[in-house]
Every structure is written in structure tokens, then in C-alpha cells.
């Protein structure tokens, strides 16, 4: 290519500075949720001295651990302009499979764990194949899968909560002490997963492709991105993440609970939306989702600490969700 023919005109900046750390952390969509989280924390700190303690924050993270992890998978799917209604049900099924195999069928705990993860991944894969191969809208596919996984959970569990779970499956519920704060290993796993997916989405070609497929699938296809393979990969990966959420759920409660996760699909969507990810796909971050999950957890915990009934938490969450989606819509319209 002839590079010397162009005279040096003030056409393009000679040197493009990389975005600063501040810009990277606070890319438009994450700033609002982060500020909201800080405001909520400040508010509760002023109202009660029980809020701003290491122990309480460790507790909040434990409380958002399961829904937060489910919301990672949900974020991936929503970034591709899809939606997953089946994640809570897949998690419940996976947790029942793990615990029942280990407790009632005498399967070695590690193998039971792996089978549980495989079941969750298989359900995610099935979602992905139905969305791409048939193809069907994600809403319908995952609505169907919600019912299938829910029914299988109840059939297989015989409606019985599984107790006496081997220690390997509850190990993530154990704690270590940092300073004077007890932290569960599960909290570390959850935070680790968020960082891992922040890296995958932000720093790898796969992440770019996930955004592109959600943002403009036709453009993604024309630029040579294997859009169907990306989609199937996203749904299957989400399934695996739901399996990890199942393990976290077993670790947190110490039992395999067939009733678990019934509102987690909507709760995970709430976290994703509060974190600034657009339901139209192609924009948002997984760290935003972490902030979204924490907003819900902080408000729930904080209101309880100052003695406000839990129903108000539901009320506030509802208002915030509508606000977040409104903001998404308005900013999209203006940027057109």
C-alpha cells in the first residue's frame, strides 16, 4: 500500500491515546448504577452503624452470590439481544442432580458435582441450539425450558429437600477470616467469575463478537463472525455458569432445594438491567451487573437493618428497574 502519497494534513490524530482507567471503569452505562450504589450505601451508613461493617458487606455478597452468578449468564445472553427465563430452573435442577446423586445414589461427590455441571451446560446448549438452528425466539425457548427444568426438578427430587449433603458440595460455604471478617469461599468464586467474564467480554475477540452479534447480527455475519456458533457458545457458557450457581446455592443453604430459584430468572434480569445493560443487546458490562446485583442486596439488607419491611425492597427495586430501562431507551433514542 502506498503510505507516502498522503500529504500530512490535519486529518487524523497522529497518536491515539488509549482510554484512561477512569474511562474504562466508568464507561457511560456503568456510572449511573455505581453512583446509585454509593448513594444507597451512604444513606444506610448514616441511618445505622450496623451497616458499614466488614461482616455486613460479606453478608451482602453472600446474599447476592447465587442471583449474581446467574446474572452473569443472563448478561451474556442479554448482550446477544436474547433473554433467559430458564436460568433459575436450570440451577435448581442442577443442584438437585448434584445432591441427590451424591446423597441417594452413592455417586462420589466430585463426580456428582461434574454431572450436575454437565446437566446445566447441556440445558444451556439446548437453549442455544433451539435459538439458532430452528430458529426460535429466546423468550419462547427459555420459557419452555423453564417449565421442563422445573418439572424435571420436581419429578427427580420427589418433592424432597436433599439433606446430609457431602462436604465437598458445601465447601464453598466455608469461611476464612480476613481481619475480623468472615468471608465465604463462594463469595470469592463469584467475584472471580465476574472478573473472568469482564476480561473475556472486554479483552478477547470472543467478547467483541458477543457484542457485535447483539448489536447488529447482520453486520456481524457479513464481517465473517460465525454468529450461530457465537450464540450457541454464549448459551452453553451461560448453562455452565448456572451449574456453578447451583453449587453456590447448595453451599449457601447446605441442602438441595427443589423449590429454589423460582424467581431468580426475573431477579437476574433485574440485576442485569440495573447494571446498565441494554435489553436490546450489544451494550452493557458484566461489572455493571455485579453493581446491579449489589444494589438489590444493599437495599434489601439496609432496609432490614433500619427496620423497614421487605415488601418495600420489592417496591424500590421495581421503581429502579423501570428507571433503568427508561434511561436505556432515552439514551438510545438520543444517540440515533
Amino acid at each position, binding site marked *: 500500500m502506498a503510505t507516502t502519497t498522503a500529504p500530512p494534513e490535519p486529518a487524523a490524530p497522529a497518536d491515539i491515546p488509549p482510554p484512561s482507567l477512569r474511562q474504562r471503569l466508568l464507561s457511560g452505562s456503568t456510572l449511573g448504577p455505581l453512583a446509585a450504589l454509593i448513594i444507597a450505601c451512604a444513606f444506610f451508613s448514616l441511618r445505622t452503624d450496623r451497616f458499614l461493617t466488614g461482616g455486613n458487606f460479606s453478608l451482602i455478597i453472600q446474599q447476592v452470590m447465587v442471583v449474581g452468578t446467574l446474572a452473569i449468564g443472563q448478561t451474556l445472553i442479554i448482550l446477544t439481544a436474547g433473554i433467559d427465563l430458564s436460568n433459575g430452573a436450570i440451577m435448581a435442577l442442577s443442584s438437585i442432580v448434584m445432591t441427590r446423586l451424591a446423597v441417594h445414589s452413592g455417586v462420589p461427590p466430585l463426580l456428582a458435582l461434574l454431572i450436575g455441571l454437565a446437566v446445566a451446560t447441556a440445558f444451556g446448549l439446548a437453549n442455544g441450539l433451539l435459538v439458532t438452528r430452528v430458529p426460535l425466539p429466546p423468550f419462547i425457548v427459555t420459557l419452555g425450558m423453564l417449565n421442563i427444568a422445573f418439572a424435571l426438578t420436581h419429578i427427580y427430587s420427589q418433592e424432597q429437600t436433599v439433606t446430609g449433603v457431602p462436604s465437598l458440595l458445601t465447601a464453598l460455604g466455608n469461611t476464612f477470616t480476613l481481619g475480623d471478617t468472615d468471608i465465604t469461599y463462594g463469595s470469592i468464586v463469584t467475584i472471580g467469575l465476574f472478573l473472568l467474564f469482564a476480561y473475556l467480554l472486554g479483552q478477547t475477540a470472543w467478547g*467483541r463478537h458477543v457484542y*457485535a452479534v447483539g448489536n447488529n447480527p447482520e453486520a456481524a455475519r457479513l464481517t465473517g463472525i460465525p454468529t450461530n456458533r457465537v450464540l450457541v457458545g454464549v448459551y452453553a457458557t451461560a448453562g455452565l455458569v448456572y451449574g456453578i450457581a447451583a453449587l453456590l446455592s447448595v453451599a449457601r443453604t447446605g441442602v438441595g432445594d427443589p423449590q429454589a430459584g423460582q424467581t431468580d430468572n426475573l431477579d437476574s434480569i433485574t440485576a442485569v438491567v440495573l447494571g446498565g445493560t441494554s435489553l436490546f443487546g450489544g451494550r452493557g458490562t458484566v461489572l455493571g451487573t455485579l453493581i446491579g446485583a449489589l444494589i438489590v442486596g444493599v437495599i434489601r439488607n439496609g432496609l432490614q437493618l433500619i427496620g423497614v419491611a421487605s415488601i418495600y425492597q420489592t417496591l424500590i427495586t421495581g421503581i429502579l428497574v423501570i428507571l433503568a430501562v427508561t434511561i436505556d431507551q432515552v439514551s438510545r433514542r438520543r*444517540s440515533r
Partner: protein
Amino acid sequence: MTPAHAQPVMEARGLVKRYGQVTALDGADFELLPGEVLAVIGDNGAGKSTLIKALTGAIVPDSGEIKLDGQVVHFRTPIDARRHGIETVYQDLAVAPALDIASNLFLGREQRRSGVLGTVFRMLDKPAMRRRAAQQMAELKIGLRSLTQAVENLSGGQRQGVAVARAAAWAEHMVIMDEPTAALGVKESGQVLDLIRRIRDRGLPVVLISHNMPHVFEVADRIHVQRLGRRVAVVKPDEHSMSEVVAVMTGALTIDASDQAVVVDQEAATAAGVRPTGKE
């Protein structure tokens, strides 16, 4: 001007494409020479877009053959054509609006870091991609404040610039542009036409599909006129007037073997504004 004996970059002979009863291509020919801007014009239904789709692999013709650098090729998908160094700028631009400029330039062809970071951790080499993007934009003189802004925050002309720059960056053989000025104002159209010239000056031939005759006459070296599924003429803009070319397009004139315009339908030719030139 292009030497007559130069081997065409792309050549197509006798392309036929039927959709049920409709014949979209009826033995169409095509020829793109090195280093030229070839405009493809034709009325609606003349088979213009079907021709372009056949050349870029978006459709597979029922019969006929396509040669690239003298070699017969069979494109089954747009990706096939792209692998052969043919880049297309689609009318809707095919950009991901929420991603930044550099990401769009490298979409589907991301560069990884060297070493373990790239091979094991699959880490993108964002600085390198930004550098190359900046270089590309500078070469094509597309002025942008920052390459880290999302494409959706750009003006229409700037977005077009991004799409064109992407095509030019990756094309090894040719760039095809589908109506690149259709959605733009006067000033921005002028910038895109400049861009087309600069790409040609870098040695890449450009195929320009356009309805806009002044733009075609401003930038094209040759004009391929498509009518009723065939190529009816190839003319040079400095040898024929705009109204003559329009008359050829509508069938009022034909161009004979000695490159002379022959009136077929006097009434239509007059209506199209073709004045008797005394050549007949």
C-alpha cells in the same frame, strides 16, 4: 488511463439468475480493470443488485462464470468473496453501532497480543489495532476526534468513512460500494467521492453502484450500464453526456461497436434530453 490489454481484475461472462418466472440476470457480462473506478448504473429492476450479489457471493448464479485475476472462482457466501480480497461496503454499512471505531475496523479480524497473553489468554492487542486504525484513517484523510468513540456517535458521513476505511483496509483485490452517497448531504457526499478517488489512487479498483448521475460522472473512469438483466454498454464519462447515458439506461439509445450513440427511440431520447449531435 487504463491500457486496453491489461488483464481484468474481475471478469464475468454470461451470468444468469432466475427467481421463478423472473429473470434477474439474463447473460450479464462484467469487467473490472486494475486501478479504475467503475460505476454500475441501471434502472430499478435492471439486475444491478443481482449482479453485485453474484459478484460478492451473496447469491450463486444459475450459470455463467466469474474470474478473479484470470482464475475461475465460485463464491458461495459473502465470506468466500471476502477471503478472496473482495470487500463490500453495504448500503446499511454493516457496522456495530455500539462498538468503537477501531473495534469496527477489526470486527471479525481481531488481532491478538503476541506471546502467552495472546495464545493462552486470547488477549486482544488493542493498542496495535488502534494504531493501525489511526494509520488507516490518516491515509484516507478521514478526520475523527477519537478512535475510541462509538460509531453511533458519529455523523452519517463519518460512519460511511468508517465502513469505507474498513473495506479499503482489508481489500486486496477490489472494493464494492453500494449507494455510498444515498443518505448523505452535499458536503459529506463530496468527502465520500474524495475517499473513492484516494482508494483508487492507492491502486485498488472500486465498483460504485449509484443512482446519482452527477456523482457517477464526477468520479467514475468507466460506466457499466445494466438494462434488462444484461450489460448494454460500457462508456467513458468524458465521451458521452449524462443525458445520453440516461437514454441508454432507459433503452432510448444504444451504443454501437464504434462507441457511437445510436437512437433507437427518438421520442424517448428527446424526452431524456439527448440533442441531435450530427454524429448520425
